[in-house]
Protein backbone atom coordinates (compact mmCIF):
# COMPACT_ATOMS: atom_id res chain seq x y z
CA UNK A 1 0.00 0.00 0.00
CA UNK A 2 2.90 2.32 0.73
CA UNK A 3 4.33 1.80 -2.74
CA UNK A 4 0.95 2.59 -4.22
CA UNK A 5 0.69 5.79 -2.28
CA UNK A 6 4.13 7.05 -3.19
CA UNK A 7 3.47 6.58 -6.93
CA UNK A 8 0.58 8.51 -8.42
CA UNK A 9 -1.93 6.35 -10.31
CA UNK A 10 -1.87 6.17 -14.12
CA UNK A 11 -5.60 6.66 -14.25
CA UNK A 12 -7.96 8.06 -11.67
CA UNK A 13 -11.68 7.61 -12.19
CA UNK A 14 -14.05 9.40 -9.82
CA UNK A 15 -17.83 9.25 -9.66
CA UNK A 16 -18.45 8.45 -13.34
CA UNK A 17 -22.15 8.34 -14.20
CA UNK A 18 -24.13 8.02 -17.39
CA UNK A 19 -27.84 7.93 -18.02
CA UNK A 20 -29.79 7.34 -21.20
CA UNK A 21 -33.01 9.26 -20.69
CA UNK A 22 -34.56 8.00 -17.44
CA UNK A 23 -32.47 4.87 -17.41
CA UNK A 24 -29.30 4.93 -15.33
CA UNK A 25 -26.64 3.03 -17.24
CA UNK A 26 -23.82 3.78 -14.88
CA UNK A 27 -23.80 5.23 -11.38
CA UNK A 28 -20.92 6.63 -9.40
CA UNK A 29 -18.05 4.38 -10.51
CA UNK A 30 -14.65 5.19 -9.03
CA UNK A 31 -11.26 3.45 -9.10
CA UNK A 32 -7.56 4.00 -9.60
CA UNK A 33 -5.28 2.14 -11.97
CA UNK A 34 -1.51 1.97 -11.55
CA UNK A 35 1.07 1.48 -14.34
CA UNK A 36 1.34 -2.15 -15.43
CA UNK A 37 -1.85 -3.15 -13.66
CA UNK A 38 -4.64 -5.11 -15.32
CA UNK A 39 -8.16 -4.47 -14.10
CA UNK A 40 -11.05 -6.68 -15.12
CA UNK A 41 -14.60 -5.36 -15.20
CA UNK A 42 -17.09 -8.22 -14.96
CA UNK A 43 -20.85 -8.41 -14.83
CA UNK A 44 -23.77 -9.67 -16.84
CA UNK A 45 -24.98 -8.18 -20.11
CA UNK A 46 -26.44 -4.73 -19.63
CA UNK A 47 -24.72 -4.16 -16.30
CA UNK A 48 -22.90 -1.07 -17.59
CA UNK A 49 -19.47 -2.58 -18.32
CA UNK A 50 -19.18 -1.24 -21.82
CA UNK A 51 -20.68 2.10 -20.85
CA UNK A 52 -17.99 2.40 -18.19
CA UNK A 53 -15.25 1.50 -20.67
CA UNK A 54 -16.48 3.93 -23.33
CA UNK A 55 -16.76 6.73 -20.78
CA UNK A 56 -13.22 6.23 -19.49
CA UNK A 57 -11.80 5.92 -22.99
CA UNK A 58 -13.50 9.23 -23.88
CA UNK A 59 -15.46 7.60 -26.66
CA UNK A 60 -18.68 8.70 -25.00
CA UNK A 61 -18.94 11.66 -22.64
CA UNK A 62 -20.24 10.74 -19.18
CA UNK A 63 -22.86 12.89 -17.43
CA UNK A 64 -20.99 13.05 -14.16
CA UNK A 65 -17.59 12.43 -12.67
CA UNK A 66 -14.03 12.85 -13.84
CA UNK A 67 -11.33 10.79 -15.52
CA UNK A 68 -7.74 11.84 -15.01
CA UNK A 69 -4.79 10.35 -16.86
CA UNK A 70 -1.08 10.60 -16.08
CA UNK A 71 0.13 12.40 -19.21
CA UNK A 72 3.78 11.79 -20.18
CA UNK A 73 5.75 14.39 -18.27
CA UNK A 74 2.63 16.32 -17.28
CA UNK A 75 1.00 14.82 -14.19
CA UNK A 76 -2.65 13.88 -13.85
CA UNK A 77 -4.88 15.69 -16.34
CA UNK A 78 -8.64 15.59 -16.69
CA UNK A 79 -9.26 14.10 -20.14
CA UNK A 80 -12.56 15.89 -20.64
CA UNK A 81 -11.03 19.32 -20.14
CA UNK A 82 -8.43 18.63 -22.86
CA UNK A 83 -9.07 19.85 -26.39
CA UNK A 84 -10.42 17.30 -28.84
CA UNK A 85 -7.09 17.32 -30.67
CA UNK A 86 -5.16 16.49 -27.46
CA UNK A 87 -7.63 13.76 -26.55
CA UNK A 88 -7.42 12.17 -29.97
CA UNK A 89 -3.65 12.33 -29.92
CA UNK A 90 -3.68 10.61 -26.52
CA UNK A 91 -6.07 7.97 -27.84
CA UNK A 92 -3.77 7.05 -30.71
CA UNK A 93 -0.44 7.22 -28.91
CA UNK A 94 -0.65 6.43 -25.19
CA UNK A 95 -3.89 4.45 -25.35
CA UNK A 96 -5.14 1.49 -27.27
CA UNK A 97 -8.65 0.21 -27.75
CA UNK A 98 -9.34 -3.41 -28.62
CA UNK A 99 -12.86 -4.02 -29.87
CA UNK A 100 -14.80 -7.20 -29.39
CA UNK A 101 -15.30 -7.43 -33.14
CA UNK A 102 -11.92 -6.94 -34.86
CA UNK A 103 -13.64 -5.46 -37.92
CA UNK A 104 -14.49 -2.39 -35.79
CA UNK A 105 -10.86 -1.75 -34.96
CA UNK A 106 -9.16 -2.69 -38.23
CA UNK A 107 -9.26 -1.46 -41.79
CA UNK A 108 -10.42 -4.67 -43.37
CA UNK A 109 -9.45 -3.81 -46.96
CA UNK A 110 -6.00 -2.48 -46.19
CA UNK A 111 -3.01 -4.82 -45.78
CA UNK A 112 -1.91 -6.03 -42.34
CA UNK A 113 1.30 -4.00 -42.64
CA UNK A 114 -0.55 -0.76 -43.28
CA UNK A 115 -2.95 -1.54 -40.43
CA UNK A 116 -0.03 -1.81 -38.04
CA UNK A 117 1.75 1.21 -39.55
CA UNK A 118 -1.21 3.58 -39.59
CA UNK A 119 -0.61 5.01 -36.12
CA UNK A 120 3.05 5.60 -36.93
CA UNK A 121 2.17 7.34 -40.18
CA UNK A 122 -0.32 9.46 -38.23
CA UNK A 123 2.54 10.50 -35.97
CA UNK A 124 4.59 11.61 -38.96
CA UNK A 125 6.69 8.53 -39.84
CA UNK A 126 7.51 9.01 -43.52
CA UNK A 127 9.98 6.20 -44.18
CA UNK A 128 8.49 3.16 -45.90
CA UNK A 129 11.36 0.83 -45.01
CA UNK A 130 11.15 1.60 -41.30
CA UNK A 131 7.35 1.33 -41.30
CA UNK A 132 7.59 -2.06 -42.90
CA UNK A 133 10.26 -3.26 -40.51
CA UNK A 134 8.26 -2.31 -37.45
CA UNK A 135 5.10 -3.84 -38.95
CA UNK A 136 6.95 -7.12 -39.53
CA UNK A 137 8.36 -7.04 -36.02
CA UNK A 138 4.93 -6.51 -34.49
CA UNK A 139 3.32 -9.23 -36.55
CA UNK A 140 5.96 -11.57 -35.22
CA UNK A 141 5.36 -10.48 -31.66
CA UNK A 142 1.66 -11.26 -31.92
CA UNK A 143 2.47 -14.60 -33.60
CA UNK A 144 1.28 -13.77 -37.11
CA UNK A 145 3.50 -15.06 -39.92
CA UNK A 146 5.33 -11.95 -41.29
CA UNK A 147 4.87 -13.47 -44.77
CA UNK A 148 1.27 -12.30 -44.52
CA UNK A 149 2.21 -8.64 -44.12
CA UNK A 150 0.63 -7.72 -47.47
CA UNK A 151 -2.60 -9.68 -46.96
CA UNK A 152 -5.78 -7.89 -45.97
CA UNK A 153 -7.29 -8.82 -42.57
CA UNK A 154 -10.36 -9.95 -44.49
CA UNK A 155 -8.37 -13.10 -45.35
CA UNK A 156 -7.38 -13.73 -41.70
CA UNK A 157 -9.04 -16.03 -39.18
CA UNK A 158 -10.86 -14.58 -36.17
CA UNK A 159 -7.95 -15.17 -33.83
CA UNK A 160 -5.45 -13.64 -36.23
CA UNK A 161 -7.64 -10.59 -36.71
CA UNK A 162 -7.82 -10.09 -32.97
CA UNK A 163 -4.04 -10.40 -32.65
CA UNK A 164 -3.58 -7.97 -35.54
CA UNK A 165 -5.85 -5.51 -33.79
CA UNK A 166 -3.70 -5.79 -30.70
CA UNK A 167 -0.49 -5.25 -32.73
CA UNK A 168 -2.03 -2.20 -34.41
CA UNK A 169 -2.69 -0.70 -30.99
CA UNK A 170 0.63 -1.58 -29.40
CA UNK A 171 2.88 -0.20 -32.13
CA UNK A 172 3.08 3.24 -30.47
CA UNK A 173 4.04 1.65 -27.11
CA UNK A 174 0.91 2.81 -25.27
CA UNK A 175 0.71 2.71 -21.49
CA UNK A 176 -3.00 1.94 -21.22
CA UNK A 177 -5.17 -0.47 -23.19
CA UNK A 178 -8.94 -0.68 -23.14
CA UNK A 179 -10.26 -4.09 -24.13
CA UNK A 180 -13.91 -4.82 -24.72
CA UNK A 181 -14.51 -8.58 -24.55
CA UNK A 182 -11.27 -9.29 -26.43
CA UNK A 183 -11.70 -13.07 -26.47
CA UNK A 184 -15.43 -13.63 -26.60
CA UNK A 185 -15.72 -14.27 -30.33
CA UNK A 186 -13.02 -16.93 -30.36
CA UNK A 187 -13.03 -20.66 -29.74
CA UNK A 188 -11.47 -21.97 -26.56
CA UNK A 189 -8.00 -22.97 -27.78
CA UNK A 190 -7.58 -19.68 -29.66
CA UNK A 191 -8.79 -17.83 -26.56
CA UNK A 192 -6.13 -19.53 -24.48
CA UNK A 193 -3.35 -18.51 -26.88
CA UNK A 194 -4.59 -14.95 -27.00
CA UNK A 195 -4.80 -14.70 -23.22
CA UNK A 196 -1.29 -16.07 -22.99
CA UNK A 197 -0.10 -13.46 -25.47
CA UNK A 198 -1.86 -10.63 -23.64
CA UNK A 199 -0.34 -11.71 -20.34
CA UNK A 200 3.09 -11.76 -21.88
CA UNK A 201 2.70 -8.37 -23.58
CA UNK A 202 1.25 -6.57 -20.57
CA UNK A 203 4.17 -7.81 -18.49
CA UNK A 204 6.88 -7.02 -21.07
CA UNK A 205 5.58 -3.55 -21.86
CA UNK A 206 4.49 -2.56 -18.34
CA UNK A 207 1.10 -2.06 -19.94
CA UNK A 208 -1.90 -1.18 -17.83
CA UNK A 209 -5.21 -2.50 -19.10
CA UNK A 210 -8.91 -2.36 -18.39
CA UNK A 211 -10.52 -5.54 -19.65
CA UNK A 212 -14.28 -5.78 -19.89
CA UNK A 213 -15.40 -9.38 -19.87
CA UNK A 214 -18.25 -11.62 -18.83
CA UNK A 215 -15.88 -14.56 -18.61
CA UNK A 216 -14.53 -15.02 -15.09
CA UNK A 217 -11.75 -17.28 -16.39
CA UNK A 218 -10.38 -14.37 -18.44
CA UNK A 219 -10.46 -12.20 -15.35
CA UNK A 220 -8.73 -14.89 -13.31
CA UNK A 221 -5.93 -15.33 -15.86
CA UNK A 222 -5.28 -11.75 -16.85
CA UNK A 223 -6.30 -9.40 -14.12
CA UNK A 224 -4.64 -8.30 -10.93
CA UNK A 225 -7.75 -6.65 -9.65
CA UNK A 226 -11.37 -6.77 -10.60
CA UNK A 227 -14.56 -4.79 -10.38
CA UNK A 228 -17.98 -6.48 -10.33
CA UNK A 229 -20.89 -4.54 -11.78
CA UNK A 230 -24.63 -4.97 -11.57
CA UNK A 231 -27.37 -2.61 -12.77
CA UNK A 232 -24.86 0.13 -13.52
CA UNK A 233 -23.27 0.05 -10.08
CA UNK A 234 -20.00 -1.32 -8.83
CA UNK A 235 -21.06 -3.91 -6.25
CA UNK A 236 -17.70 -5.35 -5.35
CA UNK A 237 -14.05 -4.72 -6.11
CA UNK A 238 -10.74 -6.10 -4.94
CA UNK A 239 -7.88 -8.41 -5.83
CA UNK A 240 -8.95 -10.98 -8.41
CA UNK A 241 -8.23 -14.04 -6.29
CA UNK A 242 -9.88 -12.51 -3.28
CA UNK A 243 -13.07 -11.61 -5.15
CA UNK A 244 -13.31 -14.93 -6.96
CA UNK A 245 -12.42 -17.18 -4.04
CA UNK A 246 -14.24 -15.29 -1.33
CA UNK A 247 -17.06 -13.29 -2.89
CA UNK A 248 -18.85 -11.00 -0.44
CA UNK A 249 -21.73 -9.54 -2.40
CA UNK A 250 -24.72 -11.74 -3.20
CA UNK A 251 -24.45 -11.03 -6.92
CA UNK A 252 -20.76 -11.92 -7.02
CA UNK A 253 -21.52 -15.14 -5.18
CA UNK A 254 -24.15 -15.94 -7.80
CA UNK A 255 -21.73 -15.09 -10.60
CA UNK A 256 -18.95 -17.25 -9.22
CA UNK A 257 -21.25 -20.18 -8.54
CA UNK A 258 -22.67 -19.97 -12.07
CA UNK A 259 -19.37 -20.93 -13.67
CA UNK A 260 -19.49 -24.45 -15.10
CA UNK A 261 -16.50 -26.60 -14.36
CA UNK A 262 -16.05 -29.51 -16.70
Amino acid at each position, binding site marked *: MNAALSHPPLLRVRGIGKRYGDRVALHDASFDLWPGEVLAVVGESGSGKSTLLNAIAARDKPDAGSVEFQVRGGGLQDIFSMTE*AQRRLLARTDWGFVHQNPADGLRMD*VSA*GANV*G*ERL*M*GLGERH*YGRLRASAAEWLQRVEIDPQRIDDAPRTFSGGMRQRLQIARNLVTQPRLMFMDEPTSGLDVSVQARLLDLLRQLTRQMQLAAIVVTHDLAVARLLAHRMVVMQHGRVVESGLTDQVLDDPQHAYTQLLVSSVLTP
Partner: protein
Amino acid sequence: MTTTTAISYNFAYLDERTKRMIRRAILKAVAIPGYQVPFGSREMPLPYGWGTGGIQVTAAVIGPKDVLKVIDQGSDDTVNAVNIRRFFQRTTGVETTTRTTEATLIQMRHRIPEAPLAEGQVLVYQVPVPEPMQRLEPRETTTRVLHALAEYGLMHVKLYEDIARYGHIATTYDYPVLVNGRYVMSPSPIPKFDNPKLDMNPALQLFGAGREKRIYALPPYTPVESLSFDDHPFEVQRWDEPCALCGATDSFLDEIITDDRGSRMHVCSDSDYCQSRQQAPAGQAAASEEQAIA
Protein backbone atom coordinates in the same frame (compact mmCIF):
# COMPACT_ATOMS: atom_id res chain seq x y z
CA MET B 1 -17.93 36.77 -81.27
CA THR B 2 -21.13 38.06 -79.70
CA THR B 3 -24.03 35.79 -80.30
CA THR B 4 -27.63 36.76 -79.84
CA THR B 5 -30.21 34.12 -79.17
CA ALA B 6 -33.97 34.17 -79.20
CA ILE B 7 -34.14 33.21 -75.52
CA SER B 8 -32.02 35.63 -73.59
CA TYR B 9 -30.31 34.26 -70.53
CA ASN B 10 -28.77 36.27 -67.76
CA PHE B 11 -25.08 36.91 -68.41
CA ALA B 12 -23.28 33.57 -67.89
CA TYR B 13 -26.56 31.68 -67.44
CA LEU B 14 -26.79 31.82 -63.61
CA ASP B 15 -28.81 34.54 -61.94
CA GLU B 16 -26.91 37.27 -60.08
CA ARG B 17 -27.80 36.05 -56.58
CA THR B 18 -26.50 32.59 -57.34
CA LYS B 19 -23.29 34.06 -58.70
CA ARG B 20 -22.88 36.12 -55.53
CA MET B 21 -23.35 33.01 -53.42
CA ILE B 22 -20.70 31.18 -55.43
CA ARG B 23 -18.33 34.16 -55.27
CA ARG B 24 -18.64 34.21 -51.49
CA ALA B 25 -17.70 30.53 -51.41
CA ILE B 26 -14.75 31.26 -53.71
CA LEU B 27 -13.56 34.12 -51.49
CA LYS B 28 -13.64 31.86 -48.46
CA ALA B 29 -11.83 29.14 -50.40
CA VAL B 30 -9.10 31.58 -51.44
CA ALA B 31 -8.75 32.76 -47.85
CA ILE B 32 -8.20 29.17 -46.62
CA PRO B 33 -6.13 27.46 -49.34
CA GLY B 34 -7.08 23.82 -49.80
CA TYR B 35 -10.14 23.95 -47.53
CA GLN B 36 -13.32 22.59 -49.08
CA VAL B 37 -16.07 25.21 -48.85
CA PRO B 38 -19.65 23.95 -49.21
CA PHE B 39 -21.83 25.88 -51.64
CA GLY B 40 -25.37 25.65 -52.99
CA SER B 41 -24.62 23.85 -56.22
CA ARG B 42 -27.32 24.49 -58.86
CA GLU B 43 -28.69 22.19 -61.46
CA MET B 44 -26.94 22.96 -64.74
CA PRO B 45 -27.94 22.11 -68.29
CA LEU B 46 -25.52 19.19 -68.41
CA PRO B 47 -25.21 16.04 -66.31
CA TYR B 48 -23.11 15.62 -63.17
CA GLY B 49 -19.69 14.39 -64.09
CA TRP B 50 -19.47 16.65 -67.13
CA GLY B 51 -18.18 19.65 -65.29
CA THR B 52 -21.14 21.17 -63.45
CA GLY B 53 -18.87 22.39 -60.66
CA GLY B 54 -16.36 23.94 -63.04
CA ILE B 55 -19.09 25.61 -65.09
CA GLN B 56 -20.63 27.22 -62.02
CA VAL B 57 -17.28 28.56 -60.88
CA THR B 58 -16.54 29.89 -64.37
CA ALA B 59 -20.00 31.45 -64.56
CA ALA B 60 -19.42 33.19 -61.23
CA VAL B 61 -16.04 34.71 -62.14
CA ILE B 62 -16.35 35.37 -65.90
CA GLY B 63 -16.67 39.00 -67.07
CA PRO B 64 -17.44 40.49 -70.49
CA LYS B 65 -13.75 41.27 -71.10
CA ASP B 66 -12.51 37.77 -70.31
CA VAL B 67 -10.95 35.55 -72.97
CA LEU B 68 -12.04 31.98 -72.34
CA LYS B 69 -10.25 28.73 -73.11
CA VAL B 70 -11.79 25.34 -72.32
CA ILE B 71 -9.83 22.10 -72.43
CA ASP B 72 -10.72 18.49 -71.84
CA GLN B 73 -7.81 16.10 -71.21
CA GLY B 74 -5.52 18.77 -72.64
CA SER B 75 -7.44 19.12 -75.86
CA ASP B 76 -9.48 22.09 -77.07
CA ASP B 77 -11.59 20.11 -79.51
CA THR B 78 -13.11 17.20 -77.62
CA VAL B 79 -16.83 17.03 -76.83
CA ASN B 80 -16.73 18.36 -73.29
CA ALA B 81 -14.49 21.29 -74.20
CA VAL B 82 -16.41 22.23 -77.35
CA ASN B 83 -19.76 22.18 -75.58
CA ILE B 84 -18.71 24.14 -72.52
CA ARG B 85 -16.97 26.73 -74.74
CA ARG B 86 -20.11 27.09 -76.87
CA PHE B 87 -22.25 27.31 -73.73
CA PHE B 88 -20.31 30.36 -72.52
CA GLN B 89 -20.15 31.86 -76.01
CA ARG B 90 -23.92 31.76 -76.13
CA THR B 91 -24.62 32.95 -72.60
CA THR B 92 -21.90 35.59 -72.27
CA GLY B 93 -20.66 36.43 -75.77
CA VAL B 94 -17.06 36.58 -74.51
CA GLU B 95 -14.14 36.01 -76.79
CA THR B 96 -12.79 32.45 -76.81
CA THR B 97 -9.39 31.14 -77.71
CA THR B 98 -7.41 27.94 -77.83
CA ARG B 99 -4.11 29.70 -77.03
CA THR B 100 -3.12 29.25 -73.40
CA THR B 101 -1.10 32.47 -73.32
CA GLU B 102 -3.98 34.58 -74.68
CA ALA B 103 -6.64 33.28 -72.29
CA THR B 104 -7.54 35.08 -69.07
CA LEU B 105 -9.82 32.30 -67.86
CA ILE B 106 -9.20 28.60 -68.51
CA GLN B 107 -11.65 25.89 -67.56
CA MET B 108 -9.94 22.53 -67.53
CA ARG B 109 -10.78 18.90 -67.22
CA HIS B 110 -7.99 16.58 -66.07
CA ARG B 111 -4.98 18.52 -67.40
CA ILE B 112 -3.04 21.71 -66.72
CA PRO B 113 -1.73 23.40 -69.90
CA GLU B 114 1.97 22.90 -70.66
CA ALA B 115 2.65 26.58 -71.38
CA PRO B 116 3.65 28.41 -68.20
CA LEU B 117 0.81 30.40 -66.67
CA ALA B 118 1.00 34.03 -65.69
CA GLU B 119 -0.28 36.33 -62.98
CA GLY B 120 -3.83 37.42 -63.69
CA GLN B 121 -4.89 34.16 -65.29
CA VAL B 122 -7.60 32.11 -63.58
CA LEU B 123 -7.73 28.32 -63.86
CA VAL B 124 -10.97 26.48 -63.13
CA TYR B 125 -10.79 22.75 -62.45
CA GLN B 126 -13.67 20.30 -62.80
CA VAL B 127 -13.62 18.03 -59.76
CA PRO B 128 -15.53 14.75 -59.47
CA VAL B 129 -14.46 13.78 -55.93
CA PRO B 130 -13.18 16.68 -53.78
CA GLU B 131 -12.44 14.58 -50.69
CA PRO B 132 -8.98 12.98 -50.96
CA MET B 133 -9.72 10.51 -48.14
CA GLN B 134 -13.10 9.39 -49.40
CA ARG B 135 -12.03 5.94 -50.53
CA LEU B 136 -10.40 5.19 -47.19
CA GLU B 137 -12.93 6.84 -44.91
CA PRO B 138 -16.46 6.91 -46.32
CA ARG B 139 -18.00 9.00 -43.52
CA GLU B 140 -17.85 12.69 -44.32
CA THR B 141 -18.40 13.68 -40.69
CA THR B 142 -15.17 11.83 -39.91
CA THR B 143 -13.12 13.23 -42.80
CA ARG B 144 -14.13 16.75 -41.76
CA VAL B 145 -12.81 16.13 -38.26
CA LEU B 146 -9.60 14.68 -39.72
CA HIS B 147 -9.15 17.81 -41.85
CA ALA B 148 -9.94 20.08 -38.91
CA LEU B 149 -7.34 18.40 -36.72
CA ALA B 150 -4.87 17.85 -39.59
CA GLU B 151 -4.78 14.10 -38.92
CA TYR B 152 -3.53 12.85 -42.24
CA GLY B 153 -2.01 9.45 -41.40
CA LEU B 154 -4.70 7.89 -43.56
CA MET B 155 -3.32 9.45 -46.75
CA HIS B 156 -0.03 7.70 -46.25
CA VAL B 157 -1.84 4.41 -45.66
CA LYS B 158 -2.98 4.72 -49.27
CA LEU B 159 0.55 5.36 -50.53
CA TYR B 160 1.89 2.54 -48.32
CA GLU B 161 -0.60 0.16 -49.91
CA ASP B 162 0.60 1.19 -53.36
CA ILE B 163 4.22 0.43 -52.54
CA ALA B 164 3.34 -2.83 -50.78
CA ARG B 165 1.35 -3.98 -53.79
CA TYR B 166 3.29 -2.61 -56.75
CA GLY B 167 6.72 -1.76 -55.39
CA HIS B 168 6.29 1.94 -56.09
CA ILE B 169 3.62 4.60 -55.60
CA ALA B 170 1.22 3.53 -58.34
CA THR B 171 -1.19 6.45 -58.02
CA THR B 172 -0.82 8.22 -61.36
CA TYR B 173 -3.63 10.74 -61.29
CA ASP B 174 -5.55 12.60 -58.58
CA TYR B 175 -2.34 12.38 -56.56
CA PRO B 176 -2.94 13.92 -53.11
CA VAL B 177 -1.12 17.13 -52.18
CA LEU B 178 -0.50 19.10 -49.00
CA VAL B 179 -1.46 22.74 -49.46
CA ASN B 180 0.45 25.47 -47.65
CA GLY B 181 1.58 22.94 -45.04
CA ARG B 182 -1.96 22.56 -43.76
CA TYR B 183 -4.76 20.94 -45.78
CA VAL B 184 -4.49 17.75 -47.81
CA MET B 185 -6.26 18.32 -51.10
CA SER B 186 -7.33 16.37 -54.14
CA PRO B 187 -5.89 18.13 -57.21
CA SER B 188 -8.78 16.70 -59.33
CA PRO B 189 -7.90 13.84 -61.68
CA ILE B 190 -4.95 15.57 -63.32
CA PRO B 191 -2.00 13.24 -64.03
CA LYS B 192 0.68 13.48 -61.35
CA PHE B 193 2.86 14.83 -64.15
CA ASP B 194 0.98 18.11 -63.59
CA ASN B 195 1.35 18.17 -59.81
CA PRO B 196 4.57 20.23 -59.84
CA LYS B 197 2.70 22.93 -61.80
CA LEU B 198 0.32 23.43 -58.86
CA ASP B 199 3.20 24.55 -56.65
CA MET B 200 3.86 28.31 -56.49
CA ASN B 201 1.78 28.87 -59.60
CA PRO B 202 1.33 32.60 -60.39
CA ALA B 203 -2.26 31.99 -61.59
CA LEU B 204 -5.32 31.72 -59.35
CA GLN B 205 -6.57 28.12 -59.29
CA LEU B 206 -10.21 27.38 -58.44
CA PHE B 207 -11.72 23.92 -58.04
CA GLY B 208 -15.44 23.24 -58.38
CA ALA B 209 -17.26 19.99 -57.56
CA GLY B 210 -20.91 20.26 -58.61
CA ARG B 211 -22.34 16.99 -57.39
CA GLU B 212 -20.44 17.12 -54.10
CA LYS B 213 -21.21 20.85 -53.71
CA ARG B 214 -17.71 21.92 -52.77
CA ILE B 215 -15.37 24.68 -53.91
CA TYR B 216 -11.70 24.99 -53.00
CA ALA B 217 -8.85 27.11 -54.22
CA LEU B 218 -5.13 27.75 -54.50
CA PRO B 219 -4.33 31.46 -54.44
CA PRO B 220 -1.34 32.53 -56.57
CA TYR B 221 2.06 31.44 -55.25
CA THR B 222 0.73 28.84 -52.79
CA PRO B 223 3.22 26.13 -51.81
CA VAL B 224 1.82 22.73 -52.82
CA GLU B 225 3.66 19.56 -51.92
CA SER B 226 2.87 16.09 -53.28
CA LEU B 227 2.74 13.51 -50.50
CA SER B 228 5.47 10.87 -50.48
CA PHE B 229 7.73 8.71 -48.34
CA ASP B 230 11.35 9.64 -47.61
CA ASP B 231 12.58 6.46 -49.29
CA HIS B 232 9.96 6.61 -52.06
CA PRO B 233 9.98 10.24 -53.19
CA PHE B 234 7.39 11.76 -55.50
CA GLU B 235 8.15 11.23 -59.20
CA VAL B 236 6.33 12.21 -62.37
CA GLN B 237 5.73 10.03 -65.42
CA ARG B 238 8.43 9.90 -68.14
CA TRP B 239 8.37 8.70 -71.71
CA ASP B 240 11.10 7.06 -73.74
CA GLU B 241 10.21 8.89 -76.94
CA PRO B 242 9.36 12.47 -77.88
CA CYS B 243 5.99 13.63 -79.23
CA ALA B 244 5.55 12.16 -82.74
CA LEU B 245 4.09 15.41 -84.07
CA CYS B 246 6.08 18.23 -82.52
CA GLY B 247 9.07 16.42 -81.02
CA ALA B 248 8.51 17.80 -77.50
CA THR B 249 10.26 15.88 -74.76
CA ASP B 250 8.90 17.91 -71.87
CA SER B 251 5.13 17.41 -72.23
CA PHE B 252 2.56 14.85 -71.16
CA LEU B 253 2.07 12.31 -73.97
CA ASP B 254 -1.01 10.32 -74.93
CA GLU B 255 -0.63 6.98 -76.63
CA ILE B 256 -2.72 6.88 -79.80
CA ILE B 257 -3.47 3.66 -81.64
CA THR B 258 -3.27 4.37 -85.35
CA ASP B 259 -4.50 1.13 -86.95
CA ASP B 260 -5.72 -2.32 -85.98
CA ARG B 261 -2.29 -3.93 -86.35
CA GLY B 262 -1.01 -2.47 -83.12
CA SER B 263 0.77 0.58 -84.52
CA ARG B 264 0.79 3.42 -82.08
CA MET B 265 2.28 6.83 -81.59
CA HIS B 266 2.82 9.15 -78.67
CA VAL B 267 1.61 12.72 -79.04
CA CYS B 268 1.19 15.69 -76.70
CA SER B 269 -2.08 15.64 -74.81
CA ASP B 270 -2.04 19.47 -74.80
CA SER B 271 -3.25 20.18 -78.35
CA ASP B 272 -2.50 23.92 -78.20
CA TYR B 273 1.06 23.31 -77.04
CA CYS B 274 1.64 20.74 -79.78
CA GLN B 275 0.19 22.91 -82.56
CA SER B 276 2.02 26.05 -81.54
CA ARG B 277 5.27 24.09 -81.57
CA GLN B 278 4.51 22.72 -85.02
CA GLN B 279 3.63 26.18 -86.35
CA ALA B 280 6.67 27.86 -84.83
CA PRO B 281 9.55 28.49 -87.27
CA ALA B 282 11.56 25.30 -87.70
CA GLY B 283 14.72 26.76 -86.18
CA GLN B 284 12.93 27.85 -83.04
CA ALA B 285 11.26 24.48 -82.47
CA ALA B 286 14.53 22.66 -83.08
CA ALA B 287 16.32 24.99 -80.71
CA SER B 288 13.88 24.42 -77.91
CA GLU B 289 14.05 20.71 -78.58
CA GLU B 290 17.81 20.70 -78.31
CA GLN B 291 17.49 22.66 -75.13
CA ALA B 292 15.06 20.12 -73.74
CA ILE B 293 17.30 17.21 -74.71
CA ALA B 294 20.35 18.93 -73.27
